[in-house]
Every structure is written in structure tokens, then in C-alpha cells.
């Protein structure tokens, strides 16, 4: 399972970087979305994939028995998803406003503030 995840995450990162390097601002935002999802998947798989072993404490014991799935990366991913959602919705609105004001979808036309 892990090698498959690694390949999938790699493809996501590659696609994200490719999209971010395009000139269109819409593609830039799509790239950012793919990038944050790739990062989330990567965190999700860092602790390893454990099947059918929820981190529950059996009745009468104080600690779970045997190998269990690590719940922490999932908590981290939840937090990261929420943050990414908020930030990306901001980015989408920003791109729309920028298009309304600058009237261009081309990053090359947005270099008045450079140099």
C-alpha cells in the first residue's frame, strides 16, 4: 500500500508544480490546491498504513493491545485540511477580484509591482 501511495503523492506534486508554473492565475490556484492535497496525503502516510487496528482501549485495560494505527497524523491532516480549505477559498476570491481589477488572467501582465 505504501509504495502505491508514494507514487500517487509524487504524481500529485508533479502535477501541482506543473500547474503553478503556468502563466494563468486560475491554473496557479489549481496548482496550490493539488499541492496542499499532496502534502495532506503525505502526512497521512508518514506513520505507515495500518489496516483494521483502530486505536481503541479494550474494556478493563488502560492501554490498547498489540499494534494499532497511529491516530495523530489523522488529527494533523484534519487540521491541515481545514486550514488549507480556508486559505484556498481566500485564494480563489483573490484571483477573482484580481481578474476584475486587472482584467487579465496572465501573470506576465501583473508585473507592475516588480523591480
Amino acid at each position: 500500500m505504501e509504495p502505491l501511495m508514494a507514487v500517487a503523492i509524487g504524481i500529485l506534486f508533479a502535477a501541482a508544480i506543473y500547474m503553478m508554473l503556468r502563466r494563468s492565475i486560475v491554473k496557479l490556484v489549481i496548482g496550490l490546491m493539488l499541492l496542499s492535497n499532496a502534502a495532506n496525503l503525505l502526512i497521512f502516510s508518514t506513520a505507515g498504513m495500518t489496516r483494521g487496528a483502530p486505536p481503541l482501549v479494550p474494556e478493563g485495560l488502560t492501554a490498547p493491545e498489540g499494534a494499532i494505527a497511529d491516530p495523530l497524523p489523522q488529527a494533523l491532516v484534519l487540521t491541515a485540511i481545514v486550514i488549507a480549505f480556508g486559505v484556498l477559498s481566500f485564494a480563489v476570491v483573490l484571483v477573482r477580484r484580481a481578474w476584475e481589477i486587472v482584467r487579465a488572467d496572465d501573470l506576465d501582465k501583473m508585473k507592475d509591482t516588480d523591480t
Partner: protein
Amino acid sequence: MNPEIALPILIPLMSGAVSLVFWRSRLMQRLVAVGGTAGLLITALWLLASVNREGILVMHMGNWAAPFGISLVADLLGAIMVVLTGIIGLAVAIYSLATAGRGHEAYGYFPLMHLLLAGVAGAFLTGDIFNLYVWFEVMLVASFALLILGSEKAQMEGAIKYVTLNLLSSVIFLIAVGLLYGMVGTLNMADIARRLAAVEDQGMVDALAMMFMVAFGIKAAAFPLFFWLPASYHTPPVAVSALFAGLLTKVGVYALFRVFTLIFHHSPGYTHEILLWGAGLTMLSGVLGAAAQFEFRRILSFHIVSQIGYMILGLALFTPLAIVGGVFYIMHHIIVKANLFLVSGIVHRLGGSYQLKRLGGFYRSHPWLAVLFLIPALSLAGIPPLSGFLAKFIVIRAGIEAEAYGVTAIALLVGLLTLYSMIKIWTEVFWKSTPPEGDVAPYPEVRQRELWLMAAPVVGLGLCTLFIGLYPAPIHALAEASAAQLLDPDAYIRAVLGEGVEVLP
């Protein structure tokens, strides 16, 4: 139980919430802005006094003992940074009373400012690496919204670059945190530091160190990742520029200091060597960029980049004296740089432009403003007896003692070029005669009360600069003590995890 550890985070959060409740009342928002930031400054001073007296203070959220819960850790560096946050927050809040337009205030200028301060203070005080990421995001979201308040064309263009690069750095940071967790199975920074010493795969540790360096390097605007800063910092309202210039990049620098003294300090020959190159090139590229500019705030933005280089240089040399210099430099720089932006705002209000070509004659018309500009400007260039001289002196002396002559020569040269830039502003804005009225639209008359509100924070920050310059002993002692703490990670680990913990070699 030390409530003062959590208060610098809670007070801005609460003031932001109260500010939101009074969404329609301009007066209440303004009162809360000044009251909240003053409260932040007072608790920050309280925190600094406690840390100075009792050593590293730790607070476990929800009484979950480290490393299982989230810990807030206040060591001297963190406490100093929080005090600086309070100073800049208060100065900018007072300044905003005069400069924030009604349009900005109606769209949540003050609540966002409180949120930004909460994010910054949280980043300085957290002892948990994932929590650091969360505070970074709190700070970033607030800064995004502040950056585009007003929705002008330049702001949109600047914001797209700012948002993209900062999100990229956040993602890199997040990936690095995830991989680090995969390696050591903990998120508490003290626990990470303890367990990382036992990791055998040094190559992977170095790779992670590089990811953190890139992520924080983008936030701190270090070479070669600084291009977003000069493209965006001159676009928002000037009070926002000052707030960003004083605090945001310094959060990145703080994170570099924290991570590369506590966690990744085992192979300085590799990581700190790269930091050293980065520091030298940051200083040089920033100052050369500034030399080509003729817009007040853009010159200052490029100088943020070059000054970041000095702070990273202090970290990269990694000798006790160099760390003292780095910490001292941060203290001096935050105050001076925010002050210069505030002065540029006054000049803009009086002269109607940020373009140096269109300004002039201020020495004749407003001699007091010339003095207020010269204090931070000469301090930035490192002229004695102002604060910048001592900061540069310590860093450069550390460079010579560490026999890093190349980068020390760069630091000296950059000091000279900084002076050139400041003199350029001085001659163009203050010295030369007023340019003939061209296409500049007539500017509304400035009321006396407005001018006082703008000048008061500038005078206050100028006095801070003079104080650090003329009576540096207590500040230097603070920097020295915090450097000693930074170079003794074991003390940090023991303070967070408890005395009984076994510190791995």
C-alpha cells in the same frame, strides 16, 4: 501556574473578538485597538520579567503533560520577541487612528490587526512544531486580508505573489513536519530535539533541515527566496506595511533561530555553512536592489531583505557572540524598520507621494520630521551612537573572531551601501528644494490632531532606538542571556519535559 505565558496570545484574540462585536462602532473599535495592544505590551513585559527571573517558563495546555499535549514555552528569545510585538502593535494601533481610512475600518482593519498580532505572539510562544504551523497560518490569513484592504490594482498584483509564495512555504513546512513526525514520532520541539539525536540516518536529518530552512527562508525573505517581499510590501496602507515590515519576516527569522539551535544543531558544518552563504547573498542582493529604487517604501522593503541577512549571519556563525549579535540585531531592527515605514507614511501624508522625485523641501518645511527620520535611518546604517552601530559591531566582531572574513567584508560593505540609500532618501526628500507642482493633485490639509497621532509612535520608537544606542547594557545583557539559553538546548528540553528526563548525547 503562570498566566502570563498564555496572555499575550489570549489578549489579541479577545480584543479581535470584541472588535468584531462592535463591527459598526468606529469609536469602540479604535478604543479596543489601543487598549488591546497596550494590554499586549504590558503582559509581554510581565512575561519578560518573569522569564528573566525564573528561567524558561512552560505551560501545558489542558494539563496534558509534554510531549503529549501542546506546550507553550517562553524562553528569553520568545519573551523578547513578544515584547517587540507589543511595542510595534501599540505603535501601529495609535498610528492607524490617524491613517486608517473609513473604508479600511469598515472592512475589519482592526480585528484583522489583532488576529495578526495573536498569530505572531503564538508563533513566538509555542513549543510544538505543528502548533507553530497553525500560528503561521493564523498570521498569514490575517496578513493576506490586510494586504488587499482597499483593493487597488497594485495591491492585487502584489497579493498574488505574496499569497502564492507564502502558501508554497507553508506547504513545504507542513511536509517537513510530517516527515519529521514519521521519523521521531513526536511533535513537541523539545522531544524532537531529544529523539533526533538518536536517529542514525543523518542524511535524512540533513534533508529535513534543508526543508525547514527553505520554508522559513521564504517567510524570512532570505536569498534567493525574497522576491515576494519587495513586490508586495509597498502596496498596502502604510500602517500595514509598517506592521509587516516590523514583525512578519522576523517570525521567519525567529523560527530559523529556534529550529537551528534546538533541533538541527548536530551538523553545523553542513546546515550552518549553507545558512552562512545565504546570509551573505541576502545582505548583498537586498542592498543592491535598494540602490536601484526611487520609491520610498520600495527602498525600505529591499533593506528589510538586506538586514535579514545580518540576523541570519548571527545564527550561521553559531558562536556565542554571534548569537548575541543576532538577537540584538533583531531587537534593534524591528523597532527601526517599523519606524522608518511610519515616517514614510507621514511624508506621504504631507507630500502626497512616495516617489522620491516628487518630494522635497521637507527640511525647510518640517525640520522635526527630518530629525525623526534621521534617528532610525542612521541607526539602520549603523552610525554610532545609535542602536544599529552596536548590533552591527557585535555581528561583525563575531565574524572576525570566527575567521569568516569573506562574509564579514560583505557585511561591512552592505553597511556602507545602506548609508548610501539612507543618504539618497535624505537628499531627495529633505535636502533638495521642493519640485515644481506638476501633475500632483492638491492634497487635503492635514489637521494638527492627525499629525500628532502620526508623530507620537514615531517619537516613541525613536526614543527606543536612542535608548538602545545610548544605554545598551540592559539590552545587551538580555541578548547575552537569551543567546546562552539558545546554545544550551538541554536546558530547554529539561524545562519542557521535566527534570527527570534523560537527555541523549
